[in-house]
């Protein structure tokens, strides 16, 4: 079975590192880390992910801008994006996650189990 490719974008290396370790440990996913959002588009073009997990608040280029850049690229426009955000409370999202403007937002901190459930749900669509 082909592993699904996930691009993890966060300016905090320990988070992308642990996302990679946790997701790859399931045997279902291949994860590429990107800690510089300015290089996220190039990384996505090269890696051709099935899903992108991105932080929202990052220096220089925010997660929303990264998603907009992906949508402008014909080869990447259909790639779903999950936003991980530390800038909102779970109460503000109405739960641990919420779909806002067609994007799934998950409030940090989240556990791996919740993240895996969200990834499976999105990739099965």
């Amino acid at each position, binding site marked *: 079975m082909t592993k699904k490719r996930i691009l993890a974008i966060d300016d905090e290396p320990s988070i992308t590192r642990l996302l990679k370790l946790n997701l790859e440990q399931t045997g279902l996913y291949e994860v590429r880390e990107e800690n510089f959002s300015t290089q996220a588009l190039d990384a996505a073009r090269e890696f051709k992910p099935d899903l992108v997990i991105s932080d929202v608040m990052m220096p220089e280029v925010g997660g929303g801008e990264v998603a907009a850049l992906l949508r402008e690229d014909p080869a990447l426009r259909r790639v779903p994006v999950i936003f991980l955000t530390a800038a909102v409370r779970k109460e503000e999202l109405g739960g641990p996650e919420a779909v806002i403007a067609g994007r799934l937002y998950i409030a940090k*901190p989240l*556990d791996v189990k919740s993240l895996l459930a969200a990834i499976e749900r999105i990739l099965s669509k």
Partner: protein
Amino acid sequence: MPEYLPATPLQLLLVDSDPDFVAHLRDLGVESAKPGLVLTWTADTAEAVIMSQTRAFDVLLLGADATSRPSMTAFAQLHKSAPNLPIILLTSADDDDTSLLAVREGAEDHLVKGGFDRRELLRVLRHAIERKRIESRLRRSEEFFRLISENVTDLIAVLDRDGRRLYNNPAYEQSLGPASGLAGTDSFHEIHPEDRARIQAVFRETLASGQGQRTEYRLLSQGSVRYIESLGNVVRDEQGQPDKMVVISRDITERRQAMDQLQLTLSQLQQAHEELHAAQDRLVQTEKIEALSTFAAGIAHEVRNPLQTILLGIDFLRESLRGPTGSDPATQQLVLTDLENAARKADAVIQGLLEFTAYRHQEIQVHHLSELLEQSLHAVTAELGQRGIRVQLELDSGLPGVRVDARKIKHVLIKLLLGLAERLPTAATLTLRTCQTTLVRSPASRGVPPDRPAQAAVCVELEHAAPASLVPPADLPLPTLVRKEDLDLMVVKKVVELYGGMVETQADKTGLLRTRLLFRLEPGV
């Protein structure tokens, strides 16, 4: 006594039907041939009328006509045809009534025929001419003042001692109707009831003191209220007693309305200013709350990231322990290090937050970054000296000021400098710099209108040799690297952002690392 004779001959016109009287006058030396008095005689009144209008006479002597008595009809005709010509009536001894009547109607004097000699004649002639001259001058003067009175827009009234109107100029017609109908009426009647007693008191006081007072009141005028400004002047009688009052008034309704409107506008402006002030206070309060809210959100963001690392790390290790193969020890060690670092980061953020909030009151004033940096450096001289760190100061003394809380910014700078004192290698060189610069957004940034001008800013720069891991490869563009190693920087960033500033850390190709605290320059500071 020398005889009165004018320099030029007096021209006398005699109207009389009695040749004997003409002869008598000639006996007195009144005849055309003699210098001094030149006599022209006619018995016909109609001819005298024409002569008085066509020739220049100094005096007209009106004697008996065909009825042998001076006729009032003839007098009226002649007086009307030559109003400036003095007329002396020549009457008989028993005709006092006619003389008196004629003098009342405008004759200058009378002489009883046969009752005067040359001297008496000359005296009466001289007096008649002089009186007429004075009368003419008075009439011209009255005419002059009448013209003024009737053509000015000011209101002119003459009142008696009780305030009754004796005269009102035509300007009164606009407010009180025809001036001719006002004579004898009470001048206080049209004054607004609320002002009447006050104005009556001013009137009495002016009469008593003789000193006019300028005063304002309301006049009820044809259904509307007009504002009037008046000044009274007392006219005294022959005994020096106040007799009349001349009151000059002016309708100031338009001026008053303009002033009221101005007052209203001023009051509205004042109210608007107060509302604006209150709104500004509310805005400042809102901004303070918003700034605190942003600050809190920023701190939450900085705390949640290490928490996320910790949660992901725990999940990974738990799964590793449960699985059949598990992860290799090196990976486990790496994860444990991440967990430890994350816990330290969270602690550093909370510690920094506590230190920052130790100062409860903000004192935001204009300060100069060069001074704040010097004072901060002074506080850590000992720590830097112990590590042998050499400090190079490049301060721009002419930098514009920025609005900040000096204690908090010094706290930030001291925290940064102490951090460097701990981490820099012994005997390292630290360059501290202040400068003016421009805030330019990265071209990669979105959501910023292209026409937004670059903003002027002042900055504090801390420059030192960077650890090798932070020097980017030579063929890559210079990215902004946030020094996650420097835990203090997270809170420092939030504090600086609270004052509209920003913190950036850049490594360049020469191996120097610069931490810059940038503060936008506000216009007018």
